[in-house]
């Protein structure tokens, strides 16, 4: 029997980026807020201090900061006709665990999507005609416009201190920035990071080919920065331990380095860690959430009543909680009906390795940060004419030297033996003089009728609850797009002066063992129509108006950028709507 706890105004499920943002904004509005987090408390000084943060084996190879599948995982299959099997060991994506969530282990590439990305179906249909899209592609408009979301991108960037060069300031194109970006209201809060050798060489080659390279927007800061909450971040030291790691320098934007110190000072906020929410409770009408049920690590069950429930777990687990709580209609791929589980997307990653003459080139791959880089955006979104190409979508092409960690990043020319003396010689001869850009092509993944989530009929978690089942495969459109972009990227790396360029083209089927970013999207998407979306433009559940669902769960499809900038912007957009509209008049913010 669950022990019932005193009621709160707001319960937040998960204390990563969106949970921290919503907790701060709603506590700031005077509400009594509790955040419930499955994993442990984590802070810089204790969890990843400078004395042992740089441990590749522990954090990168053995996944020390990630959710252990023994605790919770998903099942996977490519096609509805197959039997899904459990992901026993994380591979294609990493799942954060603990306070900070994915915001601790990300590279901090802090992009905005393109204005056209938010109205994708309308835009593509208008430009190319409805028949240009594959019949089973289910891309949708988001229900918001660029002008609505832009101020909230700005807020998130000024929270993080993002380092970058503006490309479009209030409609005026700026030298050195991304000329394709949507108009921004302010420059980046801090200037772009310094760039190592391979980046300047890439930018030079790109310019020679007629492109307009610009520095990648980075949450690893070029200089110290104090954000509007009064929290100060340090300068990035180019240590090369970003993604998969916590930052020991306080220089990577994360909930820990931007929000939590200010949030914890609020007397009306409380975090409860090592507690796993198992369901959202509804009243008899099924139209109102009464709070959540959670278990602690001893298996004791508690009920936390609250007037407002905000789901801020990782994308997969938001979807799982909705399905397990009976909220909304589960998606059926046969009929295309139902909202919960639809439009599941990831990224389409590819790239190249460039091998250079070791007597002429030394790239020091370990002088790195997760989000430095020089990129071009000529082949992203609909920045180029897809008409003659027969596909839609795109991505940025970037040389992003994230690390030279030697277990992971030891590029070897094709044909090198996997062991023995020749293997050692090839390691020595290529480590410093190769450009490992196997993720240099950051491709979009659009949504399809048969890529979706439901609950697995066989496999259970440790409490006997069904695991979430993912059904996912690459479609021809994405593979064509990826091949085209990989060729363009290879031309640039060739132009840098490589003696050999080896393409790592993305091929199907989707493989759950091959890392492809942790950018899982969709499953409870936002939109203008309750038939084809789970939440409205303010991320409010159509079915249960005192429930909001944050995060990339809301993306109707994924663009050719890293998602966290958009996740942060949506969180601020949703929080602003709750503060300015919902609290005054609790109920549906959009009437369908």
């Amino acid at each position: 029997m669950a022990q019932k706890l005193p009621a709160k105004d707001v319960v937040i499920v998960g204390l990563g980026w969106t949970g921290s943002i919503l907790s701060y904004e709603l506590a700031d509005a005077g509400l009594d807020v509790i955040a419930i987090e499955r994993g442990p408390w984590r802070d810089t000084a204790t969890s990843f201090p400078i004395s042992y943060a740089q441990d590749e084996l522990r954090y990168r190879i053995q996944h020390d900061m990630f959710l252990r599948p023994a605790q919770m995982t998903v099942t996977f299959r490519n096609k509805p006709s197959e039997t899904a099997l459990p992901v026993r060991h994380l591979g294609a994506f990493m799942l954060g665990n603990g306070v900070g969530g994915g915001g601790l282990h990300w590279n901090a590439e802090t992009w905005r999507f393109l204005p056209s990305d938010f109205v994708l179906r309308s835009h593509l249909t208008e430009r190319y005609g409805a028949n240009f899209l594959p019949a089973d592609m289910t891309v949708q408009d988001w229900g918001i416009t660029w002008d609505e979301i832009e101020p909230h991108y700005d807020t998130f960037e000024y929270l993080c201190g993002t380092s970058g060069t503006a490309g479009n300031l209030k409609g005026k194109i700026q030298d050195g920035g991304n000329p394709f970006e949507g108009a921004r209201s302010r420059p980046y809060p801090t200037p772009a990071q310094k760039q190592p050798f391979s980046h300047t060489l890439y930018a030079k080659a790109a310019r020679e080919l007629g492109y307009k390279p610009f520095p990648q927007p980075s949450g690893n800061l070029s200089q110290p920065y104090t954000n509007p909450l009064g929290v100060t971040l340090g300068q990035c030291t180019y240590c090369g331990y970003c993604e998969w790691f916590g930052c020991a320098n306080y220089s990577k934007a994360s909930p820990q380095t931007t929000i939590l110190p200010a949030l914890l000072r609020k007397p009306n906020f409380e975090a409860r860690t090592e507690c796993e929410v198992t369901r959202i409770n509804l009243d008899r009408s099924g139209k109102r959430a009464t709070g959540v049920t959670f278990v602690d690590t001893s298996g004791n069950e508690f009920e936390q009543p609250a007037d407002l429930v905000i789901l801020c777990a990782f994308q997969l687990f938001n979807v799982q909680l909705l399905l397990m709580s009976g909220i909304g209609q589960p998606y059926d791929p046969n009929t295309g009906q139902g909202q919960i589980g639809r439009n599941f997307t990831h990224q389409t990653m590819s790239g190249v390795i460039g091998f250079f003459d070791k007597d002429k080139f030394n790239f020091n791959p370990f002088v790195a940060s997760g989000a430095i880089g020089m990129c071009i955006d000529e082949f992203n979104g609909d920045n180029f004419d897809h008409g003659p190409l027969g596909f839609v979508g795109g991505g940025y092409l970037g040389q992003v030297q994230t690390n030279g960690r030697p277990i992971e990043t030891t590029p070897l020319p094709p044909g090198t033996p996997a062991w023995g003396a020749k293997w050692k010689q090839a390691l020595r001869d290529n480590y410093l003089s190769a450009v490992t850009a196997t993720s240099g092509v950051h491709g979009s993944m659009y949504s399809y009728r048969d890529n979706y989530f439901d609950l697995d009929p066989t496999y259970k978690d440790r409490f006997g609850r069904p695991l979430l089942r993912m059904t996912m495969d690459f479609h021809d459109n994405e593979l064509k797009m990826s091949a085209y972009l990989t060729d363009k990227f290879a031309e640039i790396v060739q132009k840098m002066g490589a003696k050999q360029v080896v393409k790592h083209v993305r091929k199907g089927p989707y493989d759950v063992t091959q890392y492809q970013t942790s950018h899982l999207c969709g499953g409870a998407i936002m939109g203008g129509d309750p038939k084809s979306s789970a939440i409205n433009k303010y991320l409010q559940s159509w079915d249960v108006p005192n429930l909001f669902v944050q995060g990339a769960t809301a993306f109707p499809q994924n663009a050719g950028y890293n998602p966290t900038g958009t996740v942060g912007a949506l969180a601020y957009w949703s929080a602003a709507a709750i503060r300015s509209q919902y609290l005054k008049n609790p109920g549906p913010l959009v009437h369908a």
Partner: protein
Amino acid sequence: MALCIAPALARAATIKGGLPWFPGAGDPPTPVRPGPWLFFTADEAAAVEALVDRLIPADELTPGGKDVGCAVFIDRQLAGPQGRYEARYMSGPFQTGTKQQGDQSPLTASQHYRQALAALDRACRDKYGDKAFAQLADAQKDQVITGLEKGSFKLDGAESSEFFKLLLKDTQNGFFADPIYGANKDMAAWKMIGFPGTHYDYRDWVERHNQRVTLPTVSMTSHPDWSQ
């Protein structure tokens, strides 16, 4: 390898009123100490030392896999939570899936090594006149390893190419991991490729383009300026 599992049991932390801070709190890795094998039997250890010494042969670049500590590394890993696959989802039913669905074996890493190493010595004794793997000549060892890699050297009760992948990955992980875990002695692997180790600050180097970094190689527990 310190996994943060045990301290979390049986309590939920409530955090309120300020950032929690405890003097001396931390979760550093436990250094591997020399000493007896913790997982391997004497026969298993002899085989693994011989295997890692062919996967990473001694030459002018580095000492061999045995002398840099790869067998010790694997032994300590297999004796701990990594060997027991404590973090993996290990509930059934177990069934073979597609390659894209990943490893579905019910065996833990330590069970896999135990079965495969016993089968390796049996197969070598059958084929090479009652000699265990460790007793073979280098050329014969390389023949066996090549056969494991290709799956053509069969092991009774274990999939040879799967075992080869596991062994190679573990050997190379140890070779390039911080020496605190028992291999990469004297940072030999890092020095071989020109990785300066666990420095945490390259601000002075980021714009020194096309120049070899001249900092001394360091690890989590060693620095040329520190006394041991």
